[in-house]
Structure formats: structure tokens, C-alpha cells
């Protein structure tokens, strides 16, 4: 069973803010699922190579030249941005002097 502090620590790492009732629910859910994950402990796999990907391993290369994105697509993407100033994405203060 993971404790409340662990749930809050994970949420912080994941950039999530949980309400009090969510913390209790996730504490229970995550503990149950992590217990299930522990069934893997039964397998001894020390000498087994980890498999990262099932894709065919083939290098895809292209000439090292810049590619310009279609301006129509750029303007559509910029339309999705919440706040723009002078053509740049504008964000709130990152560091505050406290």
C-alpha cells in the first residue's frame, strides 16, 4: 500500500493537482494496480535483454537541409494558442521573487 504522501509526490511530478477525495481514491487504486504489477517479480529475467520496441530496426536518413513548414499550417497551429504577443506564445510569470 502506498501512502498519501507518495500519491501527492507522484501527482506533483506529473503536474497534477488532486482534491482530497481524489487522493484517497487514487491511493487505493494505485496500490491495487501496483500490487498487480508485482506479479512480475515471480519471473526471473536477469539475463534477458529488455525489448524497447517492436519496430523494424532501420535507420531513416534525409539530407541535412532545413525544412520550412507550410505557413497555412503554422497559422492554424497559432490559432490554437491561448495567449500570443507579437507572434510569440505568451506565458505567465515563471519565477516569482518571494
Amino acid at each position, binding site marked *: 500500500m502506498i501512502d498519501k504522501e507518495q500519491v501527492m509526490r507522484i501527482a506533483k511530478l506529473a503536474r497534477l493537482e488532486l482534491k482530497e477525495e481524489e487522493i484517497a481514491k487514487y491511493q487505493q487504486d*494505485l496500490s491495487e*494496480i*501496483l500490487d*498487480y504489477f508485482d506479479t*512480475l517479480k515471480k519471473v526471473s529475467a536477469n539475463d534477458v535483454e529488455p525489448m*524497447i520496441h517492436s519496430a523494424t530496426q532501420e535507420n531513416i536518413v534525409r539530407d541535412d537541409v532545413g525544412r520550412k513548414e507550410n505557413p497555412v499550417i503554422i497559422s492554424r497551429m497559432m490559432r490554437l494558442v491561448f495567449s500570443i504577443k507579437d507572434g510569440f506564445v505568451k506565458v505567465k510569470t515563471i519565477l516569482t521573487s518571494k
Partner: protein
Amino acid sequence: MNVTELTIEGVQKGLIAKEFSAVELTENALLNVAKQEPSLHAFLTITKELAMAAAKATDERIAKGEKLLPLSGIPCSLKDAILVEEVRCTAGSRMLDNYIAPYDAFVTEKIKEAGAVIIGKTNMDEFGMGASTENSSFGATKNPHNLERVPGGSSGGSAASVAAGEVILSLGEDTGGSIRQPASFCGVVGLKPTYGAVSRAGIIALASSLDQVGPFARTTKDAQILFETISKRDLRDATSVDIKKKKKEVGVKELRIGVPKEYFGKGLDSGVSKLIKDTIGKFESAGAKIVEIELPHTQYALAAYYILNTSEASANLARYDGIRYGFHQEASDLLGEYLSSRSEGFGPEVKRRIMLGTYALSEGYYDAYYVKAQKIRSLLKQDFESAFNKVDVIMGPTSPVLPFLLGEKTSNPLKMYLVDTYTVPLNLVGLPGISLVAGKIDNLPVGLQVIAPSFEEDLLFSIGKTLESLQ
């Protein structure tokens, strides 16, 4: 000319014989959708203008006496994780409620080029996380065979739209069974192609090493036509490959079918078990050889899958910051905006998986979870490799259970995960699998899963056609 009854060939014959026009067919399809949607809820967005434009183009082509394209005039739907230029694309999430796709996904380009009539975007579990569509931020889709039951998921809207005859074809996306399981629940054909067979460019990612786009259809032949339309090399996806056809023609009389005992163990509904064994028996009666095989690491696949799925998802979903696109919640500083946008924008299952993945990847736990899961992946690969030394294909049930009641499994996430037992191993090792219609129990469809070696989709299609002829 009810869409419900027709195949691609049926539509195109009707168009050429001028029994109906593509515009008439499309108007009819849109009316049928409007009539069924209040009870079914398979769609999140209807793309009427796009559909009518494609229908008109098909009619013009016929008027000019030009040959029809592979999907000319065919009503299609797409899972709402696949981008269609200038159309809303939500991935079933409040996070993307107002997201308008800036460009077409590769697969969208391909079906548009082939003349498809895109009717709309279908409902799904939020970001593909679920097995019932109940995790959609916009409400669940119902199973067309029984409106009190789930259509499966995560591509439940796609499967339901095909099964209910709202469209003829649909594109879904399968990370751990999200095409095959809803195909099974809705009584249609659904294929998860070999990893790399179809480009993922323009697909909203869940777990990048597992995700694969594939077709839904009511017949194997139609699923094959759609698969052949989309399975092309795409330089925008580094894992996309040029399929070198392994021309392996295996007639049913030479066919060696592997039946893994691990796919008929604890947790399997007894009715499903009997129906699947009877269906495999039909191949045996037709001359195929049945071989009992072992896939000894099957029992560990689900845990390994959920570790990798949640780990990759936690990284992929880090992009939703409330700044560049998606749901935005005001706060006094940047961190505050990240926290509030993500906490309000994501639903409960998405948060659960992001946290599980974050935990599995965090310092001190990485080797025990993530690396261990990748080792299990290697062991599973060896299981399948040794099985395919003895047999041509592997058969078993797609889902251990019949379509369940809405709400039946929502309170316990682990119970919902267990539904994926037979489908996740294929995603872990990249193999292709198809869910075919085996039959029905109490009017609820049951799917037969057929698994082939990598890039042998053609063998799956030929088996599907054989089964349809034996039914």
C-alpha cells in the same frame, strides 16, 4: 440503398449502374446517422460538408466516365484520435474539446485520395484509455446489439458505427486491443496491423511503441481494401516500413492452427470458450490441422503491458500544458496554469495512468517496473517465435467476456484492465491480429482472434474469408 446492407463492392456496383448517386447515398447515410445517434452515440462530430464534397466528386467522376477509386463513394468514420484537417479532434477528452486539427493524418490523406466519404469522427475512451468508451468525456457509446451494454473500447464509436450500418468502414486505433475488442463486442471485423505497417503521423499518441491504426468493416474483404489503402511507407513516421510482401499462400487444407492453452484458462467465460472452440473446429473440419501450443509468459503480459502503456502515456501526455493548445485554466503563475489546466482537463482514468507511469519511471522504481516489463516483452517475443516455428497462425478468443453492462466495471479499474488479457500480447511484440465474427451468445457477438507472424496480414484476410464461407 440502405448503407446497412452494403459492402464496398455493392456500393460501387450500384453507383456504376446508376441505381443511386453518391450524393443520394451520402444524404441517406447522414439521415440514418441522425436517426440512430440519439440512442447510439457513436459520433462526436459529423462532417457533413466534407462528406457531401467527396460524394459530389465521386458523382463527377462517374459522369466523366472515369474509373472509380478504391473507396469512391464509401461512407467512412474515423476514431477521434485521427486528425482530419480543419475538423475538431478531441481524443474523447475535455482537454481537446476545442482542438481543430491543423492538418490531415497520413491515413486520412490516404482515404481522401482513395475517394472515401468521411461522415464523421467517432467516440472513444479518453486518449484511448479504456475498454468500453465509458471513459469518454462526452458520454459512452452503446452497443448496437443491446443498448444497455458497452460497445467495447477504446475505439467503441468506430465499431458501433460500422455494426449499426451508419457507415461501411471505420478507422480505429489499437494500443492494447482497442480495435479488436470492440470489433468482437459489436460483431464486426477489426484488424490491428503489424507495428510499422501503418504510419502513426497525425494520430494523437497514447503509447508510441504500441499504437497502430487499423480498419473496421463488416466483411473481411472490405477490411482488406481499407488496410491496403492506408498501409504505405510514410517518411513522417520513422517506424513506418515499406511492406515487403511475404507471398505466403496457405490453403485451409495445409493450414496449421496453433491453439494456446493459456488463452482458454481462468477468467474465460464458458460460453465464449465453447463457441470459439466450435469455430476453430470448423477450420479443422475443412482440413486444417489443430496444434496445441504453449505461450508460457502470457500470464505476465497484462502487467508488463500496463507498465509500458502508462509509462509511455505519462511521457506523451506531458505535452498537454494548457499553453499551446487544449484546455486552459487561468492561474497566477505558469506552474499554476499547468496544474490547473491538466487537473481540470483530464478525466480520472487519464490521471490514474499518468500517475502510474510517472511512478514506474521514477527514481528507484525504474528497474523494477519499466525495465522488467521490457524484459517480459522479450520473453513474450520468444514465446511467439517458437510457436510460429510449429504453426502458421494462432487462434483464440478476442475477449474473455461478452459485452458487459454499462457501468458494470467502471468502479474498479483493474477489473477493466483484465478484459485486455488476450489482446495486449500482440501490441507488446508488434504482431498483427484480426478479430473475426465467430457467432453470438444470447444475441451478443463473440469474436475469434487470429494472430499471424509480422507482415502476414494477407494470411489473416484469407482466413477471414474462409471463415465467412464456412459460417
